[in-house]
């Protein structure tokens, strides 16, 4: 088969110069014609294996990746959905209600998530002040990998979450992520939003989904610009 020299170098995870030199020195079973390399795939794969060189021929490397780990905050929030008038007088009850709101979860998963959330709550409170809490499990849930989601729950009654500023909590963002990196990424984004006082105050009374998502979109745009 034929590949551009640069493409072949990418497949072998080697610098372009090295591949070019190896072909010239006859150390690689490939031939160069112009800027292209001609080789037999089987032979080259065998050669790479013998020399402990990784050879990954990604034929579909032109198509974009299906699922990006670092999916935006907005997408995660939309997946989790907005839930109003979540009942409960204590942390445990509120979390139980919140977990039952999460879409597409089986009962087993819900109970596992709840135990993990409570465990985390025992460690230190996830009430981060200003009336907001971000309950989350300490490690990703085992089993089927799901895209990250953040479930936004507006509480009916304000609850004492033992938050750092001792304020009662009226909004919970339950964060469930498949990987630690996604978790950190979403956490940093959501904390960026919560640093904005006017946004936090607006959360005190339940927002409509459109309003809420629009604000989040604005924040994300700001963050992208800063990058």
């Amino acid at each position, binding site marked *: 088969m034929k590949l551009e020299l640069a493409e072949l170098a990418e497949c072998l995870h080697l*610098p372009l110069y090295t591949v070019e030199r190896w072909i010239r020195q006859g150390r690689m079973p490939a*031939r160069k014609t112009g800027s292209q390399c001609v080789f037999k795939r089987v032979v080259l794969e065998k050669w790479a294996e013998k020399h402990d060189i990784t050879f990954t021929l990604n034929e579909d490397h032109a198509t974009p990746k299906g699922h990006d780990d670092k999916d935006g905050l907005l997408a995660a929030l939309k997946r989790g959905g907005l839930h109003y008038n979540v009942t409960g007088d204590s942390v445990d009850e509120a979390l139980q209600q919140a977990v039952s709101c999460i879409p597409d979860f089986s009962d087993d998963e819900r109970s596992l998530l709840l135990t993990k959330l409570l465990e985390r709550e025992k460690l230190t409170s996830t009430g981060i002040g200003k009336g907001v809490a971000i309950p989350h499990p300490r490690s990703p849930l085992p089993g089927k990998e799901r895209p990250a989601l953040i479930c936004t729950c507006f509480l009916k009654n304000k609850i004492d979450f033992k938050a750092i500023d001792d304020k009662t909590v009226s909004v919970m963002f339950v964060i469930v992520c498949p990987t630690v990196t996604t978790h950190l990424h979403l956490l940093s984004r959501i904390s960026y939003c919560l640093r904005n006082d006017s946004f936090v105050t607006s959360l005190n009374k339940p927002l409509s989904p459109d309003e809420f998502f629009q604000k989040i979109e604005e924040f994300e745009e700001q963050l992208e610009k800063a990058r």
Partner: protein
Amino acid sequence: MKRFISWRVPTKWPVFRLDDRLLLIISGMIVGILSGLAAFALNRSLVFCLDFLHSYRAYWWAFILPAGGAALSSLFLSRVVNEGAGHGIPEVIYAVSRYGGLIRLRSSFSRLVSSCLTIGSGGSAGPEAPVVMSGAAIGSNIARFFSFNDRQRVTLVGCGAAGAISSIFNAPIAGLVFVLEVILGEWSTVNIVPIAVASVAGTEVSRLLAGNQIAFSHHTFHISFHDILACAGLAVVTAFMSVILTRLLRHMHHASDKTKLPIWAKAAVGGCAVGLLGFFVPDVMGEGYHSIRNMIEGVYEQGMTIAVVACFAKVLATSLTLGWGGSGGIFAPSLVVGSFSGLAYHRFLVYFFPSVPWVGEGCYALLGMAGFIGGILQAPLTGIFLIVEITGGYEVILPLIIISSLSATICYYFESASFYMKDLVERGQLLRPGTDARVLSDLSISELLEKDCISVPPSMSLREFVGLITRSRRNYFPVEDPETKEFLGLVKFDDIRPYLFNSMMYDAVFVEQIMDTHVAVARYGEDLSDVLRIMDSRGLFSMPVLANKRFVGMISKATLLDQYRKELMVQTYQG
């Protein structure tokens, strides 16, 4: 049209596309035949020259004949073909290890002509190295003509050299072993088969044209145990003589370098000296095969003293010829000196132990040759096989093995590199496959560059810089002049770590205040071994690389190790 030109690129033919072994064998055979022809041509021209000049040797002014020949040969090399003096084999070794065997086309005849002039006129040198050079050049240029890659070209260079040695000595195994041991320095199956075929082809050419004759035939020897014991002593003698020849040659070379004379005049001075020496010891003139033949047949009449004198005189004559600019190799002179030493040693044994039934002096001459070749080339196998083949004396194989390997070992204590390699080692140009020097010389800085560093302007504030750190994957930030794009210095993450969380300093400090301007830098085209030396001496793990005063990337030991390992595996993989 494509079909029309494709004969020039046989690697593209369907037959050879998958595996080039058959192609190498066929082209190796062609190269072997051609270098065999070259060897035959040189041999015949030497005979012609000697015959032509024979009648003039009786005159008193005959001593200027070698001077004239040497001067002409050095004029031819320096003015006509524009090549340096020297015998050619180090050049071939260097071309093989550094340039994938690229040798100029003119080298395929230049040394033949110049060595013919030198040796034909009576200079003390051998025709083998020039023939090896021309065989190698033939192989290299055939490979280039058919657009072979470096590995294939190196094999064909080896084929040329093997064909030449095989043809000139009528000794196919010696040709094969010499190439693998001395020229290529590696024994891989891919090389051995084509080179063996070339050896056979070269030998066959010489047999067809000159008849199947053994160069130095002799009567059968009956070796006893005490002869084998006595070999140890002979090994010491030959090792001693080969160290003398190596050193004297180099001294002569240095002396001639210091003399302020035109190149041709230097060669003439050397030639004159050889001519004068030839008056007193005629055996030193020419390549000296005639005297070897006499010694092996046991008809050399002079006594021990004369043999010793002849031995030293030959060493001196060879150094004078080659050291002062004559052209030729040391193979034949080595054989002559070796056989003289063997002969003298035998006379010595007979004188002091007259009651011991020593084997004939021819056998000692033969063993002396093997010892000397093994010693000066530090290639014991070449010594063993060459002598077995050129004398047809398999019955002496036991003492032959002992003397050859002993002599090579003793020489190693005095000269750590063989005669051919010494200059290369001194210049750091001996790059055997799979060695550290070879891997480092093959890798270049451009293959190791890490280009994902973010450049910053010197006027950037620490606040902006901290923001930038969050986006960077590297710990080093090159500082560039925003206008000229010249490299000004380097900011290391470690240096600013203490101030990273001090937000008071964010707007008070600028990048130019925290950058290191005295950082060690590597140039783009610099040798990797030099870069590594700087890194080691300063305890660095990475260095910025500049090209034209501009930053092009970082080079780090981690990437180097990764690439180094891959390179080593690719270079040393057998099969």
